[in-house]
Protein backbone atom coordinates (compact mmCIF):
# COMPACT_ATOMS: atom_id res chain seq x y z
CA UNK A 1 0.00 0.00 0.00
CA UNK A 2 2.93 2.32 0.76
CA UNK A 3 4.02 1.95 -2.86
CA UNK A 4 0.65 3.11 -4.22
CA UNK A 5 1.37 6.89 -4.44
CA UNK A 6 4.78 6.13 -6.03
CA UNK A 7 3.13 3.80 -8.53
CA UNK A 8 0.56 6.46 -9.38
CA UNK A 9 3.34 9.01 -9.79
CA UNK A 10 5.20 6.69 -12.18
CA UNK A 11 1.99 6.01 -14.09
CA UNK A 12 1.23 9.73 -14.35
CA UNK A 13 4.76 10.52 -15.49
CA UNK A 14 4.54 7.73 -18.07
CA UNK A 15 1.27 9.10 -19.46
CA UNK A 16 2.70 12.64 -19.69
CA UNK A 17 5.82 11.30 -21.43
CA UNK A 18 3.78 9.31 -23.97
CA UNK A 19 1.61 12.36 -24.71
CA UNK A 20 4.69 14.57 -25.08
CA UNK A 21 6.29 12.14 -27.54
CA UNK A 22 3.01 11.83 -29.47
CA UNK A 23 2.75 15.62 -29.69
CA UNK A 24 6.31 15.88 -30.95
CA UNK A 25 6.07 13.22 -33.69
CA UNK A 26 5.64 15.64 -36.64
CA UNK A 27 8.65 17.64 -35.41
CA UNK A 28 10.80 14.57 -34.72
CA UNK A 29 10.04 12.81 -38.01
CA UNK A 30 8.70 15.38 -40.46
CA UNK A 31 8.98 13.41 -43.71
CA UNK A 32 5.54 12.75 -45.25
CA UNK A 33 5.96 8.96 -45.38
CA UNK A 34 6.46 8.83 -41.60
CA UNK A 35 3.76 11.34 -40.76
CA UNK A 36 1.37 9.39 -42.99
CA UNK A 37 2.02 6.30 -40.85
CA UNK A 38 1.58 8.48 -37.76
CA UNK A 39 -1.79 9.80 -39.00
CA UNK A 40 -3.14 6.30 -39.60
CA UNK A 41 -1.70 4.95 -36.35
CA UNK A 42 -3.29 7.78 -34.39
CA UNK A 43 -6.52 7.18 -36.30
CA UNK A 44 -6.58 3.54 -35.22
CA UNK A 45 -5.67 4.43 -31.63
CA UNK A 46 -8.82 6.55 -31.61
CA UNK A 47 -10.93 3.93 -33.39
CA UNK A 48 -9.82 1.04 -31.18
CA UNK A 49 -10.32 3.14 -28.02
CA UNK A 50 -13.80 4.17 -29.17
CA UNK A 51 -14.73 0.60 -30.09
CA UNK A 52 -13.47 -0.61 -26.71
CA UNK A 53 -15.97 1.65 -24.90
CA UNK A 54 -18.74 -0.54 -26.33
CA UNK A 55 -17.13 -3.88 -27.19
CA UNK A 56 -14.56 -4.04 -24.42
CA UNK A 57 -16.61 -2.74 -21.53
CA UNK A 58 -19.98 -4.35 -22.30
CA UNK A 59 -18.78 -7.46 -24.18
CA UNK A 60 -21.10 -6.64 -27.09
CA UNK A 61 -18.91 -7.27 -30.13
CA UNK A 62 -19.88 -4.92 -32.93
CA UNK A 63 -18.35 -5.74 -36.30
CA UNK A 64 -20.34 -2.94 -37.92
CA UNK A 65 -18.51 0.11 -36.58
CA UNK A 66 -17.04 0.67 -40.05
CA UNK A 67 -20.56 1.80 -40.95
CA UNK A 68 -20.29 4.70 -38.50
CA UNK A 69 -16.79 5.46 -39.76
CA UNK A 70 -18.09 5.73 -43.32
CA UNK A 71 -21.18 7.64 -42.27
CA UNK A 72 -19.04 10.22 -40.46
CA UNK A 73 -16.88 10.62 -43.56
CA UNK A 74 -19.91 11.09 -45.83
CA UNK A 75 -21.57 13.42 -43.31
CA UNK A 76 -18.56 15.74 -43.23
CA UNK A 77 -18.03 15.53 -46.99
CA UNK A 78 -21.66 16.43 -47.71
CA UNK A 79 -21.63 19.26 -45.17
CA UNK A 80 -18.52 20.73 -46.78
CA UNK A 81 -19.99 20.36 -50.26
CA UNK A 82 -23.39 21.86 -49.45
CA UNK A 83 -22.02 24.65 -47.27
CA UNK A 84 -19.38 25.34 -49.94
CA UNK A 85 -16.55 25.35 -47.44
CA UNK A 86 -13.08 25.48 -48.94
CA UNK A 87 -10.08 23.43 -47.81
CA UNK A 88 -8.09 24.65 -44.82
CA UNK A 89 -8.72 24.54 -41.08
CA UNK A 90 -12.43 25.37 -41.26
CA UNK A 91 -13.56 21.80 -42.16
CA UNK A 92 -12.12 20.54 -38.85
CA UNK A 93 -14.65 22.74 -37.03
CA UNK A 94 -17.47 20.74 -38.63
CA UNK A 95 -16.11 17.37 -37.42
CA UNK A 96 -18.23 17.53 -34.20
CA UNK A 97 -21.32 18.09 -36.39
CA UNK A 98 -20.46 14.90 -38.29
CA UNK A 99 -20.11 13.23 -34.90
CA UNK A 100 -23.51 14.53 -33.82
CA UNK A 101 -25.15 13.18 -36.98
CA UNK A 102 -23.45 9.82 -36.39
CA UNK A 103 -24.78 9.85 -32.83
CA UNK A 104 -28.35 10.25 -34.13
CA UNK A 105 -27.81 7.34 -36.53
CA UNK A 106 -26.26 5.21 -33.75
CA UNK A 107 -29.21 5.95 -31.50
CA UNK A 108 -31.55 4.50 -34.13
CA UNK A 109 -29.38 1.50 -34.99
CA UNK A 110 -28.58 0.81 -31.35
CA UNK A 111 -32.26 0.93 -30.45
CA UNK A 112 -32.84 -2.09 -32.69
CA UNK A 113 -29.51 -3.90 -32.52
CA UNK A 114 -29.28 -3.87 -28.72
CA UNK A 115 -32.47 -5.86 -28.44
CA UNK A 116 -30.29 -8.82 -29.41
CA UNK A 117 -27.34 -10.39 -27.64
CA UNK A 118 -24.17 -12.36 -28.38
CA UNK A 119 -23.79 -13.74 -31.92
CA UNK A 120 -27.10 -12.22 -33.06
CA UNK A 121 -25.84 -8.76 -32.11
CA UNK A 122 -22.64 -9.33 -34.12
CA UNK A 123 -24.66 -10.31 -37.18
CA UNK A 124 -27.13 -7.44 -36.82
CA UNK A 125 -24.28 -4.90 -36.66
CA UNK A 126 -22.67 -6.41 -39.78
CA UNK A 127 -26.05 -6.24 -41.54
CA UNK A 128 -26.46 -2.55 -40.66
CA UNK A 129 -22.97 -1.82 -41.92
CA UNK A 130 -23.69 -3.44 -45.31
CA UNK A 131 -27.00 -1.58 -45.47
CA UNK A 132 -25.09 1.69 -45.05
CA UNK A 133 -22.59 0.64 -47.69
CA UNK A 134 -25.42 -0.20 -50.12
CA UNK A 135 -27.11 3.12 -49.40
CA UNK A 136 -23.84 4.97 -50.09
CA UNK A 137 -23.54 3.10 -53.39
CA UNK A 138 -27.13 3.57 -54.48
CA UNK A 139 -28.07 7.05 -53.31
CA UNK A 140 -26.11 8.41 -56.27
CA UNK A 141 -27.72 11.86 -56.17
CA UNK A 142 -26.60 12.38 -52.59
CA UNK A 143 -23.34 10.47 -52.18
CA UNK A 144 -22.06 10.24 -55.76
CA UNK A 145 -22.51 6.45 -55.59
CA UNK A 146 -19.64 4.37 -56.98
CA UNK A 147 -18.05 7.51 -58.44
CA UNK A 148 -17.26 8.65 -54.91
CA UNK A 149 -17.46 11.94 -53.06
CA UNK A 150 -14.71 14.54 -53.12
CA UNK A 151 -13.62 16.80 -50.29
CA UNK A 152 -12.10 20.26 -50.74
CA UNK A 153 -8.30 20.15 -50.87
CA UNK A 154 -6.28 22.36 -48.56
CA UNK A 155 -3.47 24.39 -50.04
CA UNK A 156 -0.86 23.38 -47.50
CA UNK A 157 2.61 22.47 -48.73
CA UNK A 158 3.53 18.82 -49.21
CA UNK A 159 5.89 18.70 -46.22
CA UNK A 160 3.31 20.16 -43.86
CA UNK A 161 0.23 18.54 -45.42
CA UNK A 162 -0.11 15.62 -42.97
CA UNK A 163 0.54 17.60 -39.78
CA UNK A 164 -2.93 19.19 -39.22
CA UNK A 165 -4.57 15.80 -39.82
CA UNK A 166 -2.19 14.18 -37.37
CA UNK A 167 -3.10 16.67 -34.65
CA UNK A 168 -6.82 16.33 -35.44
CA UNK A 169 -6.50 12.54 -35.05
CA UNK A 170 -4.40 13.06 -31.91
CA UNK A 171 -7.09 15.29 -30.40
CA UNK A 172 -9.84 12.77 -31.17
CA UNK A 173 -7.76 9.90 -29.77
CA UNK A 174 -7.13 11.96 -26.62
CA UNK A 175 -10.86 12.71 -26.30
CA UNK A 176 -11.57 8.99 -26.74
CA UNK A 177 -9.01 8.03 -24.09
CA UNK A 178 -10.35 10.70 -21.74
CA UNK A 179 -13.91 9.41 -22.22
CA UNK A 180 -12.75 5.83 -21.77
CA UNK A 181 -10.91 6.70 -18.54
CA UNK A 182 -13.85 8.66 -17.19
CA UNK A 183 -16.25 5.82 -17.97
CA UNK A 184 -13.96 3.13 -16.53
CA UNK A 185 -13.73 5.04 -13.25
CA UNK A 186 -17.43 5.82 -12.92
CA UNK A 187 -20.43 3.91 -11.67
CA UNK A 188 -21.66 3.88 -15.27
CA UNK A 189 -18.47 2.06 -16.32
CA UNK A 190 -18.85 -0.44 -13.52
CA UNK A 191 -22.38 -1.08 -14.78
CA UNK A 192 -21.03 -1.73 -18.29
CA UNK A 193 -18.48 -4.21 -16.94
CA UNK A 194 -21.23 -5.88 -14.94
CA UNK A 195 -23.25 -6.24 -18.16
CA UNK A 196 -20.22 -7.90 -19.76
CA UNK A 197 -20.01 -10.43 -16.91
CA UNK A 198 -23.70 -11.24 -16.39
CA UNK A 199 -26.38 -9.02 -17.91
CA UNK A 200 -29.34 -10.58 -16.08
CA UNK A 201 -27.59 -10.30 -12.75
CA UNK A 202 -26.80 -6.66 -13.55
CA UNK A 203 -30.51 -6.04 -14.11
CA UNK A 204 -31.26 -7.72 -10.78
CA UNK A 205 -29.08 -5.17 -8.95
CA UNK A 206 -30.74 -2.21 -10.62
CA UNK A 207 -28.45 -1.53 -13.58
CA UNK A 208 -30.68 -0.12 -16.36
CA UNK A 209 -28.88 -2.30 -18.90
CA UNK A 210 -30.76 -1.07 -21.96
CA UNK A 211 -29.97 2.59 -21.30
CA UNK A 212 -26.38 1.84 -20.33
CA UNK A 213 -25.67 -0.22 -23.47
CA UNK A 214 -27.28 2.35 -25.74
CA UNK A 215 -25.32 5.20 -24.13
CA UNK A 216 -22.03 3.32 -24.57
CA UNK A 217 -22.95 2.42 -28.16
CA UNK A 218 -23.73 6.04 -29.05
CA UNK A 219 -20.57 7.42 -27.37
CA UNK A 220 -18.48 4.83 -29.20
CA UNK A 221 -20.13 5.44 -32.59
CA UNK A 222 -19.89 9.23 -32.23
CA UNK A 223 -16.13 9.09 -31.75
CA UNK A 224 -15.78 6.66 -34.67
CA UNK A 225 -17.92 8.96 -36.86
CA UNK A 226 -15.77 12.00 -36.06
CA UNK A 227 -12.60 10.06 -36.85
CA UNK A 228 -14.22 8.94 -40.12
CA UNK A 229 -14.87 12.58 -40.95
CA UNK A 230 -11.21 13.53 -40.49
CA UNK A 231 -10.17 10.45 -42.49
CA UNK A 232 -12.41 11.52 -45.40
CA UNK A 233 -10.91 15.00 -45.37
CA UNK A 234 -7.41 13.50 -45.25
CA UNK A 235 -7.82 11.17 -48.22
CA UNK A 236 -9.96 13.86 -50.02
CA UNK A 237 -11.94 11.31 -52.02
CA UNK A 238 -14.12 8.58 -50.56
CA UNK A 239 -15.82 5.55 -52.13
CA UNK A 240 -18.46 3.37 -50.47
CA UNK A 241 -16.44 0.14 -50.61
CA UNK A 242 -13.30 1.75 -49.14
CA UNK A 243 -14.81 3.95 -46.44
CA UNK A 244 -17.56 1.56 -45.29
CA UNK A 245 -15.03 -1.26 -45.35
CA UNK A 246 -15.52 -4.31 -43.11
CA UNK A 247 -11.72 -4.53 -42.79
CA UNK A 248 -11.66 -1.20 -40.97
CA UNK A 249 -14.17 -2.60 -38.47
CA UNK A 250 -12.24 -5.86 -38.09
CA UNK A 251 -8.95 -3.99 -37.64
CA UNK A 252 -10.20 -1.98 -34.67
CA UNK A 253 -11.61 -5.13 -33.07
CA UNK A 254 -8.37 -7.05 -33.59
CA UNK A 255 -6.32 -4.20 -32.10
CA UNK A 256 -8.44 -4.23 -28.95
CA UNK A 257 -8.23 -8.03 -28.65
CA UNK A 258 -4.45 -7.92 -29.10
CA UNK A 259 -3.84 -5.15 -26.58
CA UNK A 260 -6.42 -6.17 -24.01
CA UNK A 261 -10.21 -6.14 -24.16
CA UNK A 262 -11.83 -3.76 -21.69
CA UNK A 263 -8.56 -2.09 -20.66
CA UNK A 264 -7.61 1.56 -21.16
CA UNK A 265 -4.16 1.08 -22.64
CA UNK A 266 -4.82 -2.19 -24.51
CA UNK A 267 -6.41 -0.59 -27.61
CA UNK A 268 -3.52 1.93 -27.79
CA UNK A 269 -0.93 -0.83 -27.65
CA UNK A 270 -2.83 -2.95 -30.18
CA UNK A 271 -3.04 -0.03 -32.63
CA UNK A 272 0.64 0.85 -32.10
CA UNK A 273 1.64 -2.71 -33.01
CA UNK A 274 -0.74 -3.52 -35.84
CA UNK A 275 -1.17 -0.34 -37.87
CA UNK A 276 2.51 0.50 -38.46
CA UNK A 277 3.11 -3.20 -39.22
CA UNK A 278 0.32 -3.18 -41.78
CA UNK A 279 1.62 0.00 -43.43
CA UNK A 280 5.18 -1.38 -43.39
CA UNK A 281 3.93 -4.47 -45.22
CA UNK A 282 2.09 -2.27 -47.71
CA UNK A 283 5.17 -0.07 -48.32
CA UNK A 284 7.51 -3.02 -48.73
CA UNK A 285 5.34 -5.54 -50.51
CA UNK A 286 3.07 -3.24 -52.51
CA UNK A 287 -0.62 -2.63 -52.15
CA UNK A 288 -1.32 -6.35 -51.87
CA UNK A 289 -3.62 -7.94 -49.34
CA UNK A 290 -0.64 -9.57 -47.63
CA UNK A 291 -1.48 -7.73 -44.45
CA UNK A 292 -4.64 -9.82 -44.22
CA UNK A 293 -2.48 -12.93 -43.85
CA UNK A 294 -0.57 -11.06 -41.14
CA UNK A 295 -3.83 -10.10 -39.42
CA UNK A 296 -5.04 -13.72 -39.58
CA UNK A 297 -1.77 -14.89 -38.00
CA UNK A 298 -2.06 -12.28 -35.24
CA UNK A 299 -5.67 -13.25 -34.63
CA UNK A 300 -4.67 -16.92 -34.25
CA UNK A 301 -1.82 -16.05 -31.89
CA UNK A 302 -4.13 -13.90 -29.77
CA UNK A 303 -6.77 -16.61 -29.55
CA UNK A 304 -4.31 -19.43 -28.84
CA UNK A 305 -1.74 -17.72 -26.63
CA UNK A 306 -3.15 -14.43 -25.36
CA UNK A 307 -6.93 -14.80 -25.20
CA UNK A 308 -7.13 -11.85 -22.80
CA UNK A 309 -4.69 -9.66 -24.73
CA UNK A 310 -1.19 -8.38 -23.97
CA UNK A 311 -1.93 -5.95 -21.11
CA UNK A 312 -4.04 -8.30 -18.91
CA UNK A 313 -1.63 -11.20 -19.57
CA UNK A 314 1.38 -9.04 -18.70
CA UNK A 315 -0.30 -7.79 -15.52
CA UNK A 316 -1.08 -11.38 -14.54
CA UNK A 317 2.55 -12.40 -15.10
CA UNK A 318 3.72 -9.42 -13.04
CA UNK A 319 1.33 -10.30 -10.23
CA UNK A 320 2.58 -13.91 -10.23
CA UNK A 321 6.17 -12.71 -10.14
CA UNK A 322 5.44 -10.33 -7.27
CA UNK A 323 3.65 -13.07 -5.35
CA UNK A 324 6.61 -15.43 -5.80
CA UNK A 325 9.38 -12.96 -5.08
CA UNK A 326 7.67 -10.94 -2.34
CA UNK A 327 7.19 -11.87 1.33
CA UNK A 328 4.49 -14.40 2.13
CA UNK A 329 1.08 -12.78 2.23
CA UNK A 330 -0.35 -12.53 5.73
CA UNK A 331 -3.20 -14.86 6.51
CA UNK A 332 -6.58 -13.18 6.43
CA UNK A 333 -7.67 -11.87 9.80
CA UNK A 334 -10.20 -13.94 11.66
CA UNK A 335 -13.67 -12.66 10.92
CA UNK A 336 -15.23 -10.60 13.63
CA UNK A 337 -18.39 -8.62 14.10
CA UNK A 338 -17.72 -4.98 13.24
CA UNK A 339 -17.95 -2.44 15.98
CA UNK A 340 -19.26 0.20 13.58
CA UNK A 341 -22.92 0.11 12.61
CA UNK A 342 -23.73 -0.98 9.06
CA UNK A 343 -25.01 2.25 7.58
CA UNK A 344 -26.14 0.48 4.43
CA UNK A 345 -28.90 -1.28 6.24
CA UNK A 346 -29.75 1.15 8.99
CA UNK A 347 -33.48 1.72 8.70
Amino acid sequence: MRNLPRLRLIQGAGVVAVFAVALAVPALAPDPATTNIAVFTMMYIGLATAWNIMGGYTGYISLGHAGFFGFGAYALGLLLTHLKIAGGYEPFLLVPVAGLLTAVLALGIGWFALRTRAATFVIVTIAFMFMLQLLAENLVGLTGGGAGLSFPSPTWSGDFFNTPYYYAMFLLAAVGLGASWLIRNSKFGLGLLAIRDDEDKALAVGVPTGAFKLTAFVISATLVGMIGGVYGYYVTYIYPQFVVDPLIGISMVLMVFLGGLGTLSGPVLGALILEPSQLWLAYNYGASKLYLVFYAAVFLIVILLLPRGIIPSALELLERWRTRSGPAAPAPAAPSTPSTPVKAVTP
Partner: protein
Amino acid sequence: MSLLQIDNLCKRFGGVVAVDECSLSVEPGSITGLIGPNGSGKTTVFNLVTGFIPKDKGTVTFKSQLIDRMGPDRIYALGIGRTFQLARIFPRLTALENMLVPVRRKGLRALFSGAGWSSEKARAMEMLEFLEISHVAGKLGGALSYGQRKLLELGAVMMAEPDLVLLDEPAGGVNPALLDRISAHIRKLNARGITFLIVEHNMGFVMNLCTDVIVLHRGRPIASGKPDVVRADPAVLDAYLGA
Protein backbone atom coordinates in the same frame (compact mmCIF):
# COMPACT_ATOMS: atom_id res chain seq x y z
CA MET B 1 -50.92 -3.33 5.31
CA SER B 2 -48.77 -5.96 3.55
CA LEU B 3 -45.40 -4.98 2.15
CA LEU B 4 -45.85 -7.31 -0.84
CA GLN B 5 -49.24 -8.41 -2.07
CA ILE B 6 -49.74 -10.94 -4.87
CA ASP B 7 -53.26 -11.48 -6.22
CA ASN B 8 -54.44 -14.17 -8.66
CA LEU B 9 -51.04 -14.37 -10.33
CA CYS B 10 -50.83 -16.80 -13.27
CA LYS B 11 -47.97 -17.96 -15.46
CA ARG B 12 -47.96 -20.73 -18.07
CA PHE B 13 -44.99 -22.08 -20.00
CA GLY B 14 -46.62 -23.69 -23.03
CA GLY B 15 -48.90 -26.36 -21.60
CA VAL B 16 -47.33 -26.25 -18.13
CA VAL B 17 -49.08 -24.12 -15.52
CA ALA B 18 -46.23 -22.91 -13.30
CA VAL B 19 -48.19 -20.41 -11.20
CA ASP B 20 -51.93 -20.80 -10.92
CA GLU B 21 -54.19 -18.12 -9.41
CA CYS B 22 -51.57 -17.53 -6.72
CA SER B 23 -52.43 -15.04 -3.98
CA LEU B 24 -50.15 -14.39 -1.04
CA SER B 25 -48.80 -11.56 1.06
CA VAL B 26 -45.59 -10.74 2.90
CA GLU B 27 -45.84 -8.67 6.06
CA PRO B 28 -43.30 -5.92 6.78
CA GLY B 29 -40.55 -6.97 9.17
CA SER B 30 -41.15 -10.68 8.66
CA ILE B 31 -38.88 -13.48 7.49
CA THR B 32 -41.29 -15.43 5.32
CA GLY B 33 -40.42 -18.85 3.95
CA LEU B 34 -41.84 -19.90 0.60
CA ILE B 35 -41.62 -23.66 0.48
CA GLY B 36 -43.02 -26.46 -1.63
CA PRO B 37 -42.00 -29.58 -3.55
CA ASN B 38 -39.83 -29.31 -6.66
CA GLY B 39 -41.74 -27.71 -9.54
CA SER B 40 -44.31 -26.05 -7.28
CA GLY B 41 -43.57 -22.62 -8.80
CA LYS B 42 -41.50 -20.94 -6.08
CA THR B 43 -38.73 -19.60 -8.32
CA THR B 44 -41.30 -18.62 -10.96
CA VAL B 45 -43.06 -16.49 -8.31
CA PHE B 46 -39.68 -14.85 -7.56
CA ASN B 47 -39.10 -14.19 -11.26
CA LEU B 48 -42.59 -12.70 -11.64
CA VAL B 49 -42.25 -10.47 -8.58
CA THR B 50 -38.83 -9.17 -9.67
CA GLY B 51 -39.92 -8.58 -13.28
CA PHE B 52 -37.66 -11.17 -14.89
CA ILE B 53 -40.58 -12.83 -16.66
CA PRO B 54 -43.92 -11.28 -17.63
CA LYS B 55 -47.10 -12.44 -15.92
CA ASP B 56 -50.07 -13.88 -17.81
CA LYS B 57 -52.60 -12.61 -15.30
CA GLY B 58 -52.90 -11.12 -11.81
CA THR B 59 -51.29 -8.27 -9.90
CA VAL B 60 -48.22 -7.71 -7.78
CA THR B 61 -48.29 -4.76 -5.39
CA PHE B 62 -45.30 -3.50 -3.41
CA LYS B 63 -45.74 -0.73 -0.86
CA SER B 64 -49.19 -0.06 -2.37
CA GLN B 65 -47.72 0.37 -5.86
CA LEU B 66 -48.41 -1.95 -8.79
CA ILE B 67 -45.11 -3.36 -10.01
CA ASP B 68 -46.17 -6.20 -12.31
CA ARG B 69 -45.39 -4.32 -15.52
CA MET B 70 -42.02 -2.97 -14.41
CA GLY B 71 -38.57 -4.22 -15.41
CA PRO B 72 -36.13 -5.74 -12.88
CA ASP B 73 -34.02 -2.57 -12.59
CA ARG B 74 -37.02 -0.41 -11.73
CA ILE B 75 -38.30 -2.96 -9.23
CA TYR B 76 -34.85 -3.02 -7.61
CA ALA B 77 -34.88 0.77 -7.44
CA LEU B 78 -38.21 0.62 -5.61
CA GLY B 79 -36.64 -1.54 -2.90
CA ILE B 80 -36.86 -5.22 -3.83
CA GLY B 81 -33.53 -7.04 -4.01
CA ARG B 82 -33.01 -10.69 -4.92
CA THR B 83 -30.43 -13.43 -5.03
CA PHE B 84 -30.37 -16.43 -7.36
CA GLN B 85 -30.57 -20.18 -6.81
CA LEU B 86 -26.91 -20.57 -7.81
CA ALA B 87 -24.88 -17.65 -6.42
CA ARG B 88 -24.38 -15.17 -9.26
CA ILE B 89 -21.68 -12.57 -8.94
CA PHE B 90 -19.56 -10.70 -11.49
CA PRO B 91 -16.50 -12.96 -11.86
CA ARG B 92 -14.19 -10.42 -13.54
CA LEU B 93 -14.87 -7.68 -11.00
CA THR B 94 -13.29 -7.63 -7.55
CA ALA B 95 -15.45 -8.35 -4.52
CA LEU B 96 -15.43 -4.62 -3.69
CA GLU B 97 -16.46 -3.71 -7.26
CA ASN B 98 -19.24 -6.30 -7.05
CA MET B 99 -20.54 -4.39 -4.05
CA LEU B 100 -20.43 -1.07 -5.93
CA VAL B 101 -22.38 -2.18 -9.02
CA PRO B 102 -25.91 -1.91 -7.57
CA VAL B 103 -27.67 1.23 -8.79
CA ARG B 104 -30.44 2.95 -6.91
CA ARG B 105 -29.50 6.52 -7.79
CA LYS B 106 -30.96 8.21 -10.80
CA GLY B 107 -29.59 10.65 -13.34
CA LEU B 108 -26.50 10.70 -15.51
CA ARG B 109 -24.69 13.09 -13.16
CA ALA B 110 -24.88 10.58 -10.35
CA LEU B 111 -23.52 7.89 -12.65
CA PHE B 112 -20.56 9.86 -13.98
CA SER B 113 -19.53 12.09 -11.08
CA GLY B 114 -17.09 10.98 -8.44
CA ALA B 115 -19.26 12.60 -5.75
CA GLY B 116 -20.32 10.05 -3.17
CA TRP B 117 -18.02 7.44 -4.67
CA SER B 118 -15.69 7.26 -1.67
CA SER B 119 -18.54 7.14 0.82
CA GLU B 120 -20.09 4.33 -1.20
CA LYS B 121 -16.79 2.46 -1.07
CA ALA B 122 -16.68 2.93 2.69
CA ARG B 123 -20.21 1.55 3.00
CA ALA B 124 -19.27 -1.41 0.81
CA MET B 125 -16.27 -2.17 3.02
CA GLU B 126 -18.45 -1.94 6.13
CA MET B 127 -20.88 -4.41 4.60
CA LEU B 128 -18.03 -6.78 3.65
CA GLU B 129 -16.78 -6.55 7.23
CA PHE B 130 -20.28 -7.23 8.53
CA LEU B 131 -20.44 -10.35 6.34
CA GLU B 132 -16.90 -11.29 7.48
CA ILE B 133 -15.42 -11.35 3.99
CA SER B 134 -13.57 -8.01 3.93
CA HIS B 135 -10.25 -9.88 3.52
CA VAL B 136 -11.27 -10.82 -0.06
CA ALA B 137 -12.31 -7.27 -1.08
CA GLY B 138 -9.53 -7.02 -3.68
CA LYS B 139 -9.97 -10.53 -5.06
CA LEU B 140 -11.76 -11.19 -8.34
CA GLY B 141 -15.23 -12.61 -7.91
CA GLY B 142 -14.30 -15.65 -9.97
CA ALA B 143 -11.56 -16.55 -7.48
CA LEU B 144 -13.89 -16.71 -4.46
CA SER B 145 -15.18 -19.88 -2.83
CA TYR B 146 -18.85 -20.77 -3.23
CA GLY B 147 -19.62 -19.71 0.33
CA GLN B 148 -17.90 -16.36 -0.16
CA ARG B 149 -19.88 -15.85 -3.37
CA LYS B 150 -23.14 -16.52 -1.49
CA LEU B 151 -22.24 -13.91 1.13
CA LEU B 152 -21.01 -11.45 -1.49
CA GLU B 153 -24.27 -11.79 -3.43
CA LEU B 154 -26.23 -11.08 -0.25
CA GLY B 155 -24.01 -8.09 0.53
CA ALA B 156 -24.38 -6.60 -2.95
CA VAL B 157 -28.16 -6.80 -2.69
CA MET B 158 -27.99 -4.97 0.65
CA MET B 159 -25.98 -2.08 -0.82
CA ALA B 160 -29.05 -0.30 -2.16
CA GLU B 161 -30.82 -0.50 1.21
CA PRO B 162 -33.77 -2.63 0.04
CA ASP B 163 -37.00 -2.97 1.99
CA LEU B 164 -37.62 -6.53 0.83
CA VAL B 165 -35.04 -9.18 -0.08
CA LEU B 166 -35.94 -12.34 -1.96
CA LEU B 167 -33.45 -15.12 -1.26
CA ASP B 168 -33.57 -18.12 -3.59
CA GLU B 169 -32.20 -21.14 -1.74
CA PRO B 170 -29.63 -19.38 0.47
CA ALA B 171 -28.75 -22.71 2.09
CA GLY B 172 -28.24 -24.57 -1.19
CA GLY B 173 -24.78 -26.13 -1.46
CA VAL B 174 -23.34 -24.58 1.70
CA ASN B 175 -21.79 -26.37 4.68
CA PRO B 176 -23.48 -26.34 8.11
CA ALA B 177 -21.02 -23.81 9.59
CA LEU B 178 -21.67 -21.33 6.80
CA LEU B 179 -25.38 -22.02 7.05
CA ASP B 180 -25.32 -20.84 10.67
CA ARG B 181 -23.47 -17.69 9.61
CA ILE B 182 -25.99 -16.97 6.83
CA SER B 183 -28.85 -17.49 9.31
CA ALA B 184 -27.24 -15.13 11.79
CA HIS B 185 -26.68 -12.45 9.13
CA ILE B 186 -30.29 -12.67 7.96
CA ARG B 187 -31.52 -12.30 11.56
CA LYS B 188 -29.30 -9.27 12.14
CA LEU B 189 -30.41 -7.61 8.93
CA ASN B 190 -34.03 -8.39 9.72
CA ALA B 191 -33.57 -6.77 13.13
CA ARG B 192 -32.55 -3.61 11.25
CA GLY B 193 -35.89 -3.54 9.47
CA ILE B 194 -35.36 -5.57 6.29
CA THR B 195 -38.08 -8.01 5.31
CA PHE B 196 -37.11 -11.36 3.79
CA LEU B 197 -38.94 -13.79 1.53
CA ILE B 198 -36.96 -17.01 1.31
CA VAL B 199 -37.33 -19.99 -1.03
CA GLU B 200 -35.64 -22.97 0.59
CA HIS B 201 -35.70 -26.76 0.61
CA ASN B 202 -33.79 -27.13 3.87
CA MET B 203 -36.70 -27.49 6.29
CA GLY B 204 -34.55 -27.18 9.40
CA PHE B 205 -33.24 -23.84 8.14
CA VAL B 206 -36.73 -22.57 7.30
CA MET B 207 -38.38 -23.68 10.51
CA ASN B 208 -35.62 -22.19 12.68
CA LEU B 209 -35.33 -18.90 10.84
CA CYS B 210 -38.72 -17.96 9.41
CA THR B 211 -41.45 -16.13 11.27
CA ASP B 212 -44.06 -17.11 8.67
CA VAL B 213 -44.25 -19.88 6.10
CA ILE B 214 -46.24 -20.19 2.87
CA VAL B 215 -46.50 -23.57 1.15
CA LEU B 216 -46.91 -23.71 -2.63
CA HIS B 217 -48.16 -26.77 -4.47
CA ARG B 218 -48.76 -26.87 -8.22
CA GLY B 219 -48.42 -23.11 -8.45
CA ARG B 220 -50.84 -22.08 -5.70
CA PRO B 221 -50.63 -21.68 -1.90
CA ILE B 222 -52.09 -24.56 0.06
CA ALA B 223 -51.14 -23.43 3.56
CA SER B 224 -49.68 -20.45 5.37
CA GLY B 225 -49.00 -19.36 8.93
CA LYS B 226 -46.48 -19.87 11.70
CA PRO B 227 -43.91 -22.63 11.05
CA ASP B 228 -45.26 -25.00 13.70
CA VAL B 229 -48.80 -24.68 12.38
CA VAL B 230 -47.78 -25.22 8.77
CA ARG B 231 -45.63 -28.22 9.67
CA ALA B 232 -48.63 -29.98 11.15
CA ASP B 233 -50.99 -29.17 8.28
CA PRO B 234 -52.21 -32.40 6.60
CA ALA B 235 -52.38 -30.68 3.19
CA VAL B 236 -48.68 -29.88 3.45
CA LEU B 237 -47.81 -33.44 4.39
CA ASP B 238 -49.87 -34.65 1.44
CA ALA B 239 -48.06 -32.31 -0.96
CA TYR B 240 -44.62 -33.38 0.25
CA LEU B 241 -45.25 -37.07 0.71
CA GLY B 242 -47.61 -37.43 -2.23
CA ALA B 243 -50.20 -39.19 -0.12
